């Protein structure tokens, strides 16, 4: 019984950790399937986290916070597209530049505006934050372990963004595989000159894809600063953008496998928190750091072709030059 409750709580924690990861990974999915490397996920998320927390603190409305977060991330996405698509600059360099710039800009602006040592003011109450929603009868259902506890912890008890992220997976799959836009998007990531020959603008498609990734990173960042915690702190993405990129690769650039990878990586994270200093039978204490490093090791092994194969979109990272 005790173990059962623990497992359910672990899974609930997994869902919470997976949400920003999933949003960022799907953001990366749109960008990379169109042929633009998504190295700026970290920066777009962090920028959105700051803007959302700042706007929510000032206006008292988390929805305005969400708007500011999305606007900021889209602005950064436009910068990435301007550098990497319009001016055919190195997309990896552009992504790193945005990541580093935002890592400094967030705390610098927070310090100047709020004077709290690089943080935003503590957000309070339902107005300024996305709080967990309790579904009907969830509290009553908790008493019955199965399926009541599952209902109360896994289905109920999350905030709006979590449900949005969950719904986004089938929606992304639909857009990517069942719509004309999705077909063109995939084509432009594999063979841009064919798309160009068909009279469709490569630049326009890639801008659209990168802007979608901006919107999703905006939601992910907003989740971090207004739902998962109550305000912006320095470096609060803590490598989640890179982890999302790893999840995207681990999911072989496809929506459902990416969801699986995000859940797996989030589960290792939740597990590491649980297993801190706990001695397991046979193996003893597993160092937390090793569990936390597991997603990165797995991704390297996958990329090396030791665990299945991951084939990237063919035209990824290559700026398209029309005259060639």
């Amino acid at each position, binding site marked *: 019984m005790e173990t059962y409750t623990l497992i359910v709580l672990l899974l609930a924690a997994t869902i919470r950790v997976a949400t920003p990861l999933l949003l960022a990974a799907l953001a990366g999915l749109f960008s990379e399937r169109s042929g633009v490397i998504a190295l700026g996920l970290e920066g777009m998320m962090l920028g959105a986290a700051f803007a959302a927390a700042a706007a929510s603190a000032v206006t008292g409305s988390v929805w305005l916070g969400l708007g500011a977060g999305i606007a900021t991330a889209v602005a950064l996405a436009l910068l990435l597209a301007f550098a990497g698509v319009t001016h055919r600059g190195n997309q990896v360099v552009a992504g*790193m530049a945005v990541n580093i710039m935002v890592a400094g800009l967030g705390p610098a602006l927070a310090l100047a505006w709020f004077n709290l040592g690089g943080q935003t003011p503590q957000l309070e109450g339902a107005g300024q934050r996305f709080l967990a929603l309790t579904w009907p009868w969830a509290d009553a259902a908790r008493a019955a372990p199965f399926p009541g506890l599952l209902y109360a912890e896994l289905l109920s008890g999350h905030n709006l963004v979590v449900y949005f992220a969950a719904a986004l997976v089938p929606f992304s799959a639909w857009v990517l595989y069942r719509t004309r836009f999705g077909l063109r998007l995939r084509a432009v990531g594999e063979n841009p000159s064919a798309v160009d020959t068909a009279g469709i603008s490569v630049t326009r498609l890639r801008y659209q894809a990168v802007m979608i990734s901006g919107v999703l990173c905006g939601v992910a960042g907003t989740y971090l600063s207004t739902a998962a915690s109550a305000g912006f702190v320095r470096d609060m993405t803590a490598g989640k953008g890179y982890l999302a990129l*790893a999840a995207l690769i681990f999911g072989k650039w496809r929506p459902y496998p990416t969801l699986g990878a995000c859940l797996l990586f989030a589960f290792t994270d939740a597990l590491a928190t649980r297993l801190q200093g706990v001695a397991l039978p046979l193996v003893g204490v597993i160092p937390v750091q090793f569990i936390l490093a597991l997603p990165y090791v797995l991704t390297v092994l996958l990329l090396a072709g030791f665990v299945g194969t991951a084939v990237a979109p063919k035209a990824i990272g290559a700026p398209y030059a029309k005259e060639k």
Partner: protein
Amino acid sequence: MSAPAKLPRWAELGLLPAVNLVAALLLSGVIIRLIGESPWAALKLLADGAFGSQEAVGYTLYYATNFIFTGLAVAVAYHAGLFNIGAEGQAYIGGLGTGLVCLWLGAWPFWVVLPLAILAGAVGGAAWAFIPGWLQARRGSHIVITTIMFNFIASAVMTWLLVNILIKPGQQSPESREFAANAFMPGLHTLLGKVGLAFTATPLNLAFLLALAASFLVWLLVWRTRWGYALRVAGQNPAAAVYAGILPPRVTIAAMLLSGALAGSLGLNELMGAQHRILLDFPGGAGFVGIAVALMGRNHPVGIFLAAVLFGALMQGGSQLSFDMPRVNRDMVVVIQGLVILFCGALENVARVPLAALLARLRGEKEAE
């Protein structure tokens, strides 16, 4: 890497980086203005904090030493057509090697410890770069992604080592014990003192000279040897390299080994020269600054030296700045780093096209006369 417009060599190497740097600094000035401080006063404070006294110059060059090592690391890989984002992790693991030599053999005479520490740093960094290099060459894994992953893995390994193994007994913070004094890199002020020159005591140490020596060796290797020629050919045109009898996969691995060894030398300055112990996150982002330094310095040792001094000045001047302008702190320096990478790396073509047109017009007018 295809340039849409051709610039004369002097403009490519001097004018374009200068224009991009000015653009980055102007935008930084706008941000400082937005924060509500005077950009001009900030620039003055920054310059004074970085070069205003012997102490300031010492600190600036001490920071620059780290950036020379990581900048060279990024540049060597770049010449082979590889983008090494893993200098941070390579510096971390290389520093572990240097640190362990200093911890274990600290009782030995300095001139015995030094070569071993250099070797251990280089081997540690090279080993950490070898795996991504090998994976790229033999299994086709994208080097950008694997080196990012290896940064995180290095960080996990080092945290575990410092928290559980290397930590000084009876201490809370995860740091090793201090090295024996024999294993301290002599400060430049002591070296200068021996030849009768007075210089204020700063963390600037012998590793600075080692970084200069490394710069010279990289220049020699990349531009004056057959190996360096193979490196550059394989980087610019792998298909042509194959016809010239060069094996690009082998070049990839060799370039990553050298790149990692250079990044791994950071510990000579940071640990042996300044901290005198192994501590958490001692590379402190120098691996990423190395990207900016290499891009700005056009991947040439002379350019890298100048860019490293610039970033060293930003680090040192920036910390000085935050004393006088509490609203402009070190985070601003990170913003400037990001903007420099943006303008000198990702947006370099933006200025190139109008610049090329302008130069062509000027030349045209001259010929018309």
